[in-house]
């Protein structure tokens, strides 16, 4: 039997926040326009990262990133805390340098390479990456 919960706000039992709320991976939500339902967990970003490779190599802020690996000019590997289910996840990125491309993925990480206006591998002040797909 399916069930439906009508609610305006979701918080944890203590009522102080949402950090302890767990949502099952088959749950769905009603769309913004009200005419469709989609899987809630599929829509969640599984990882994001704001990192710098220029003057310093640093993780400015991130979610589900345990460490960064520096493998040369413009190159950065983001290692996940919780791994993905496969290496076919979708992981768009953007860089403050001219452009960036995805160098590779595995269940435990994603690698990007940023390039300058001369299209040479080059460190950048800001890079942004998101990961969408299935967690293991």
């Amino acid at each position, binding site marked *: 039997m399916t069930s439906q919960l009508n609610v305006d706000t979701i918080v944890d039992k203590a009522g102080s926040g949402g950090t302890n709320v767990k949502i099952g991976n088959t749950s769905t939500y009603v769309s913004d326009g009200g005419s469709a339902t989609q899987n809630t967990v599929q829509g969640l970003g599984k990882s994001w990262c704001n990192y710098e490779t220029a003057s310093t190599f640093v993780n400015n802020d991130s979610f589900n990133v345990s460490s960064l690996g520096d493998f040369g000019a413009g190159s950065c590997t983001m290692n996940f805390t919780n791994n993905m289910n496969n290496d076919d996840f979708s992981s*768009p990125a953007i860089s403050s340098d001219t452009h960036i491309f995805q160098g590779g993925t595995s269940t435990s990480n994603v690698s990007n390479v940023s390039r300058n206006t001369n299209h040479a591998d080059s460190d950048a002040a800001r890079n942004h990456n998101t990961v969408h797909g299935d967690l293991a």
Partner: protein
Amino acid sequence: MASQLKVDTLTGVTTAGSIDVTGEGNSTTTNLQQGLAKAFCRAANDASLTNTFNIASGTDNGTGNYTYAFTNNMSTNGSSGTAVAVTNGARMSTYSNVQTSQYDTDTHNDSGTDTDAGTCTNTFGDLA
């Protein structure tokens, strides 16, 4: 004591498609539906679908140009998306020609020439 609520569908009371969740900092609320990616897509250099959510099909329109159609459409042409080329070399990818039912990606090389490449994209905005 921890509690567990088992439910299949989350629906707003005031508005069906609007549920607030408390932010990580505990000082604000943010809209659950607005914060969810409405689609993501990893596709090969011929638009064949590798791993997707809410993507019904991919079409290869010619060198470096692809169209991806949604399963559940967006409510406006103003959805926001990002794209990256998946390749071991210099390729750039754009997210363009956004419509309620589909969007395009264009990939090109360092010389600005359209070039086939795999792509990753995501889409944020309002579902219909």
